[in-house]
């Protein structure tokens, strides 16, 4: 029975979702079900991963199993209804706990504009946030050369509010008092990954968020970076991937048109 749940959080450049696309296509994970959540906006499409068999319908929130890797992967393809992010995170946390998952890994990106201490000498740094220690640290992540998200502070009002909300000790209306006072330190706890982190943690599940900074544009390289990080963290062997690309990644079929059609050359 797979015990790890891998889930993207909506974020700038859709990097978490792209990384999950890579994990699903490269591990040849099998779709095992859908989530019927009223808080997810509807969308449908053709199979995102493989050109055949044709016409395999894709829904907005799907679960995939990679049995060889003891991994369940959840892909989210459309946004959450405005104002319902925390409720959505709670539903997911309920599912994860009920289905016996022990460890949740959330993949997300962060806006490069917000990066306070840019250290280019370390290349594309991966940041993390873990529920193992109260300060968010995890020795396993530190050994991989990753840095705990420095902006995580459970005493900070919005992190604390999220935690209280996830544990049922606060009401969503209580956040109204924050409305006119948002500062820089309020940015990180406002992001979807923070809601997931707080809700999974409140259920007593081990949760690790893997984060990378990026700007909006062609975010394919960012997605490879984050998928590689997730793969290392989860101990996924490249030998278990099915691809011919570097690192044996399989490019999802839907990525052929990821950024739209080529320009109309008749203009020139």
């Amino acid at each position, binding site marked *: 029975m797979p015990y790890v749940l891998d889930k993207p959080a909506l974020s700038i450049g859709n990097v978490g979702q792209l990384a999950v696309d890579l994990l699903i296509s490269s591990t040849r994970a099998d779709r095992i079900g859908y989530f019927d959540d009223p808080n997810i906006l509807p*969308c449908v*499409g053709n199979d995102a991963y493989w050109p055949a068999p044709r016409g395999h319908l894709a829904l*907005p929130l799907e679960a995939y199993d990679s049995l060889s890797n003891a991994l369940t992967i959840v892909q989210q393809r459309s946004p959450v209804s*405005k104002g319902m992010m925390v409720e959505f995170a709670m539903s997911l946390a309920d599912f994860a706990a009920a289905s016996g998952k022990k460890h949740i890994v959330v993949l997300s990106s962060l806006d490069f504009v917000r990066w306070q201490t840019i250290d280019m000498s370390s290349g594309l740094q991966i940041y993390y946030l873990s529920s193992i220690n109260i300060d968010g640290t995890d020795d396993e992540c530190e050994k991989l050369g990753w840095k705990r998200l420095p902006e995580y502070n459970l005493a900070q009002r919005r992190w604390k509010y999220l935690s209280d909300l996830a544990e049922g000790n606060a009401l969503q209306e209580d*956040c109204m008092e924050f409305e006119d006072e948002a500062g820089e330190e309020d940015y990180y706890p406002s992001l979807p990954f923070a809601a997931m982190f707080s809700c999974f943690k409140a259920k007593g599940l081990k949760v690790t968020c893997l984060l990378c900074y990026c700007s909006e544009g062609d975010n394919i390289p960012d997605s490879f970076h984050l998928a590689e990080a997730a793969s290392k963290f989860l101990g996924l062997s490249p030998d278990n991937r099915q691809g011919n690309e570097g690192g044996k990644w399989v490019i999802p079929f839907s990525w052929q048109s990821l*950024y739209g059609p080529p320009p109309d050359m008749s203009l020139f």
Partner: protein
Amino acid sequence: MEDVLTDIPPPSRFFLEDLNNFTPPPPPLPYPFLLFSNPNPTKPLRPSLLIIALSSPSLNFFHHVSKTLIGTLILPEVPFSGNSVQPSLRDRSCNIYALNGADQLTILVSVQYAVAAERAHAVAKMLINEQMLPERVLILDSVQSRNFRGTLPPDDTFALKLETSVERKGVGDDGRGDSQLLKGVDYFPSGSVVDGLAAALLSRCQMNKIKGTLCVSWPESGGSVTSLVKSLLLKDVLPGLEHGINSFGEGEHFRFGGNKDHLLDSDLYT
């Protein structure tokens, strides 16, 4: 030319409030409900085919088909001001009809207003698996240019489809099958998506293992696409169904598919 500063960004890009955990939820809206002209209908209805028309070409086609009004779906936030007593393409309505002359029980839902994405789940649940248990569903919508990753030449006319797994299984080993609708229509390309009510309806079919097909056509309106949709419906879905200009004479204005966001839809003009 698109204004990159003020136009809605493509769907892969978010507004900050979309990603904000602390954005307050909208005020709750009353649940949609169905009203039937028969005060004691057999609940739920079990049509052999449920057709849901969302696109201008399909609404235009079905407006001229012989049918019987049996009910309507009420979305409380949609005002009725300006609606006429007799069904009209100008109405903001979501009427439910039984198609006369069709084999077995074929029900048509004509959706003549925009359903917000946040409401689509509730509306789809109302139409499929609560008040109606169809054997098969056909949804007719238009290609959404904001969600389509291929080229959309304005002078090109085409239709594409998405199907539920149960509907696809109608395909035999030779790639053909007797039980599939719209057999000759190509699949929607991977990488593009359809959102909104059409997506919610097809998703509901997939999750409830109902045979479902979503057919999207391009362009959104015009004589050529209306002819294409008419041809597909009369050939593959409702062969033998009578179609003509109805006696109310609205056909001329809407022959080429009226835009649902017509200027006259404003609340100012009632």
